[in-house]
């Protein structure tokens, strides 16, 4: 029998020295040059399903000429801003009242929107979870506390409706949170807040969100909400553009202290 490339590969793997390492030792890299072919039985199952997936996920939605990005370390999460803007905007007609604030978790946004034609599959990659839009009531003081908890844990979770500024040094800092137009937040005012069932349920440790009153579970997944928004923009012949930065202004030394878990407010 003529050896297949895979058996040649396996022979190579078998011949390669295998070693356990101490935690800081660098292991030898096993050179693998031969390709592993697909298993025909498995590939036969996958191929038609891949076709189905590609057909449905290849549907065009909207043009995003600049793309929308989560940002690297120290940069603002414009993709998160867009998602929280859409949450706020989608929540208002559902509860029939103004929604002053929206917050989501940056960790739940799993892919950037790259520049060009956005397709259904891009939104699925961005938001693979089945998380649902939830509207709750919080006081102004609780909104500020929510912002603070997200800031301390992750350097600021993406939100909509407010502006956040941290001034000073890691040792002595001041947090200033205002509404997006710069007006002060009345700590006693009761406002509607859009978030996700995941965060409202206590996910990602923003405990104050759990205090939300009069929860309204919309039944709309965040993904569906984003798909609808993109489709509406596309239909109107508009482009999807990233929101303006400037919602979180936090000095770099303070961001670093937050990452090192040495920062207190």
């Amino acid at each position, binding site marked *: 029998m003529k050896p297949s490339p*895979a*058996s040649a*590969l*396996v022979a190579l*793997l*078998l011949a*390669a020295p*295998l*070693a*356990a*390492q*101490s*935690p800081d030792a*660098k*292991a*030898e*890299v*096993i050179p*693998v040059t031969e*390709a*592993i*072919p*697909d*298993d025909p*039985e*498995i*590939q036969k*199952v*996958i191929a038609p*399903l*891949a076709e*189905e*997936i590609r057909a*449905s*996920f290849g549907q065009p939605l909207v043009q995003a000429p600049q793309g929308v990005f989560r940002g690297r370390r120290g940069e603002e999460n414009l993709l998160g801003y867009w998602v929280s803007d859409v949450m706020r905007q989608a929540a208002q007609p559902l509860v029939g009242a103004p929604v002053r604030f929206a917050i989501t978790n940056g960790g739940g946004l*799993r892919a950037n929107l*790259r520049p060009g034609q956005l397709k259904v*599959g891009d939104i*699925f*990659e961005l938001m*693979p*979870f*089945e998380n649902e839009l939830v509207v709750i009531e919080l006081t102004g003081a609780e909104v500020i506390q929510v912002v603070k908890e997200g800031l301390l844990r992750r350097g600021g979770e993406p939100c909509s409706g407010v502006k956040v500024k941290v001034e000073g040094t890691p040792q002595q800092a001041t947090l200033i949170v205002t509404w997006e137009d710069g007006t002060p937040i009345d700590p006693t005012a009761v406002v509607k807040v859009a978030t996700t*069932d*995941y965060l409202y*349920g*206590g*996910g*990602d*440790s923003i405990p104050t969100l759990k205090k939300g009153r009069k929860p309204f579970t919309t039944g709309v997944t965040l993904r569906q909400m984003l798909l609808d928004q993109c489709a509406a923009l596309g239909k109107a012949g508009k482009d999807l553009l990233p929101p303006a930065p400037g919602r979180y202004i936090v000095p770099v030394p303070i961001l670093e202290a937050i990452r090192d*878990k040495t920062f207190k407010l």
Partner: protein
Amino acid sequence: MDRRHFLASLGAAAVASQVPLKAAEAPAAGRITLLHTNDTHSRIEPFGPGNGAISGKGGMARRATLVKQLRSQLGPVLLLDAGDTFQGTPYFNRYKGRLDYQLMRMIGYDATTLGNHDFDNGVEMLVEAMASMEKLQHRNPPFAFLNCNFDCKGAPELARRIRPYMVREFPGVKVGITGVGVAFAGLVAPKNHEGIIWKDPFESLKPVVKRLREVEKVDLVVVLSHLGYDVKDAAYDDLRMPGRVAGIDAIIGGHSHTFLDAPVKVKQAQGETLVFQVGFGGVNLGRMDFTLARGEVRAASGAAMPVVG
């Protein structure tokens, strides 16, 4: 000449003088290879371009080929997984994990455990995916779901599909396998783990490892862990496990998506534990080899094998 033949070639009296005879005499020496994945996250197909160093890597059809080849050449092999099979590609959104589990059975997995993302669609959908795998018409038997730190009394359909451990016997090696999962708090929405109570993984492991050693009389104890490799500020992770739970030979880890090139040896009360994890998405297949003589591990080694096309 292998060790068995060597021993057989010695005079029977000479062997008898060194080895206490057991009622059912098992072969004196054996070996086993553990092949493993973790956090495959519905990566049915290889990673596409634009994914940096992992572009073009992985894919379940290739993994199947690699496993098949290794099985035919090595003989005693267990194919294991450390959880988070679900979530990550449109395949999961469309097929709700049924496809992942069915393909895992076709590839010949022996066991997996549950990660936090396996609860993303709730307990009912998880059970549905498990049931679809069980019902599949295929020559490979259904694989096992192993976990010893979820109290599933409030979710009977899940409870009857999860076992605290399993035992597999190979010539000269009896292997016991169990599994542990990460705490739900902050990772799984309460409605998605309704009826399941998370318990201390190390305290849950202790009686299971003891039972595997003392009652089941296994030679090798393997833990499928979805706790994470080296988790800052966490009370439970894979590097802490050997010091807290004695008697584990191998930890197949997941959750932290840690790419290791080879297993790490961690000292414990009864020798050493190999701790391993191979990144995520099926980019690599992990391999650990154990050689045993009279129920004792004599040699242990391993490496990550890239799944490339």
